[in-house]
């Protein structure tokens, strides 16, 4: 069903030609069941082939289509057009350097991601012949929510700490490190907590909760940061106790 036309004011930036980002307007016919991404695809296919942005799965799971829609970070393939008025502004995700148009640079994020050692650490690696480990449904539940992150980075765009300190480890990376810390199969919490106690990590978080509010997958990174703070402190304090005992 047609929903009439809507105007899209889209940020354009081509480092080959532009010194500053500029905007371009497109007025297009839209359908009632369209997501924001459908409209952007229509513009690219039918009006302006040079518009650059990322997308792939169009089912809210690959995490590549994040953009600012009317100033808020959104997963555009999940965001219904019908909930907006006649005009929308589309900008690249905030708090990231822009490469081109709506494409942001992911290098910093990928580095942070790797920093938290997002893999199972065990003192002795298991052989395949030992078979799968047991993990109770409750133990699974303890970290499951934090394993649902699709790396869309909307939380970095919403985070007031990232806005002022781009080096801040940030919500998704902390939630990921915490996910492994909470996994009953993992023995690497000491190593990750050492990272967490470093500068620009969990204690920089002001607990504004914006990250959890924009998360399209209900991962609750703010909750993860809070739990991680508590665990890192307990871990630190108990290591102190052990040391004293040894002395």
């Amino acid at each position: 069903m047609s929903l009439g036309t809507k105007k899209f004011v889209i940020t354009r930036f081509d480092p080959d030609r532009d010194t500053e980002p500029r905007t371009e307007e497109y007025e297009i016919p839209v359908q009632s069941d369209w997501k924001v991404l459908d409209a952007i695809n229509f513009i690219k296919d039918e009006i302006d082939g040079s518009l650059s942005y990322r997308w792939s799965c169009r089912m809210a799971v690959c995490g590549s289509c994040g953009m600012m829609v009317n100033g808020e970070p959104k997963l555009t393939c999940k965001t219904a057009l019908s909930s907006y008025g006649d005009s929308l502004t589309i900008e690249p995700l905030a708090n990231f350097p822009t490469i081109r148009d709506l494409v942001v640079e992911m290098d910093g994020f990928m580095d942070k991601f790797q920093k938290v050692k997002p893999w199972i650490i065990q003192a002795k690696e298991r052989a395949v012949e030992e078979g799968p480990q047991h993990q109770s449904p409750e133990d699974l539940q303890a970290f499951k929510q934090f394993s649902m992150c699709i790396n869309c980075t909307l939380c970095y765009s919403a985070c007031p700490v990232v806005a002022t300190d781009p080096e801040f480890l940030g919500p998704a990376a902390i939630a990921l490190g915490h996910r492994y810390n909470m996994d009953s199969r993992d023995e690497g919490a000491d190593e990750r907590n050492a990272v967490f106690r470093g500068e620009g990590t969990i204690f920089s978080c002001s607990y504004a909760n914006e990250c959890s509010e924009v998360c399209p997958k209900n991962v609750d990174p703010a909750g993860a940061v809070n739990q991680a703070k508590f665990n890192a402190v307990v871990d630190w304090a108990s290591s102190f106790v052990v040391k004293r005992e040894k002395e």
Partner: protein
Amino acid sequence: MTDVCRHDVIIVGGGAAGLRAAIAAVEADPEISVALVSKVYPMRSHTVSAEGGAAAVARDEDSLEMHGYDTVKGSDFLGDQNVIEYFVEEAPKELTRLEHWGCPWSRNEDGSVATRAFGGMTTKRTWYATDKVGFHMLHTLFQHSMRFDRIVRYDEHFVTRLLVDDGNVRGVSALDIRSGEVRAILGRSVILATGGAGKIFPFTTNGRIKTGDGMALAAAAGVPLKDMEFVQYHPTGLPGTGILITEASRGEGGLLKNSEGDRFLVTYDYGVGKKAELGPRDMISRAVVQEIEAGRGISGPYGEFVHLDLTHIGREKLEARLPFVLELARTYAGVDPLTEPIPIRPVVHYMMGGVDTDIDGATSLPGLYAAGETACGSLNGANRLGSNSLTECLVFGARAAQHAVLYSRGSSEGNESALLAQAEAEAARVSALRRHKKGSEKISTIRRELNTTMEEGCGVYREQASMLATVQTVASLQDRASDLRVSDDSMVFNTEVIAALEMKNMVDVAQAVSVSAAARLESRGAHTCRDFSSRDDENFMHHTLCYLEAGGPRLDKKSVHLGHWEPEERKY
């Protein structure tokens, strides 16, 4: 001058198959340097969208023999039986490895890994992590791969060509999407793990990036594509978008119903017998089409559909087992599966065919390997069983890597200046494309016409006349696709150039699909011809090989590896 990077093994693709291969390669040899080249960040690969599960024998009541038999029967006896035997044996080990690496498999009360029912499988053997299995497997593999410094990633690099010297593959040319430069990535062996090609069809569960690039790359280097006529239609996609509603929803008790509210799979005889909703995909897709043709479909803005009813399963189980299905149906179909049936229709899902490989993943071009959906090592034959392909990515990703590592030890560097000349020719091709504002054909128009003709000729049901018409249309589209209009002349993140390169790959793959289909004068698995309605073992118990040559496509045959299971009529 082209930028040159040197490694031992080059892996193209960062999905389940590519990541598993990368890990296996560095584990096989502590010295080796691996390049992992992917046109999107690995965690965006379409493996991420897989929902239902991954198959491997896990329970005492089950056996490797049963998994093998189900697979060969599902394949309509076109699967290679040595490959199937190896697969079922390795499958539990591979899923166990993923468990050790942190995959959050769903659990039984006692803490053991849970399994669910899946179409065409006689017993519960599909491991799952709610209904986001591909997502969890992909992220587990990607995160685990980060432990290894020797896996060097080339994220957002689009491979445009295989570099071949003296009859050996020695590298790839890759367009760095961010800078617009073409790099020569040189190595001693190359593994293609580029995924499927669903985007040549209009309604598909596949994402934007599934354009068959690896198949086209191999074909351009003279490697045959095998069994391309076998395209899997999944019976339960959302009309319009094609978004998948997983087979696990039937595994958990979902029912298919027509406009009269009848469970048509049992009310009418569609040959799926007692399996009903748990029948194999090819048969259920045909049943849905027949049901609609019999006037018992329901009409909507995107054509006729039938219903997938989950309402009787109950909130608790649906929220625990199928949370993603709830989210997808609510967001993309506007229905709440707790109280309403979901509209569904058959959609293109998976390519059984692909780059012809042997059991080691080796192709006919020395040094070139392939694994995952882009490969056809003949596990799936004429019809893949749901949940076998995620496991296939692991089993054969690992095996291809082990063999690519062995090969790389014995091979020499090759003639570097010849390789660089090829990469430079590619740089020139890309650069010409970038300035092709005067091209006469719009990319979106060619895509639409290709999609339309592929559905007309190579749909769930096929006919000689329409298949031949599609062969002709694709040939003309191939011609037109050589003059695509590219309005974007920027070096930086030029997605229109990428779309043009992908378009060319898509028409090549579509040619292989339509030509192979038109030559198979029988019905087997997913290839169902109205004019040749039964299986013809006497004349067609063979694989199709399709070579894309300068003078046009050429077909050949390859024998099927039999020996363990005797071909029989496929009845459920």
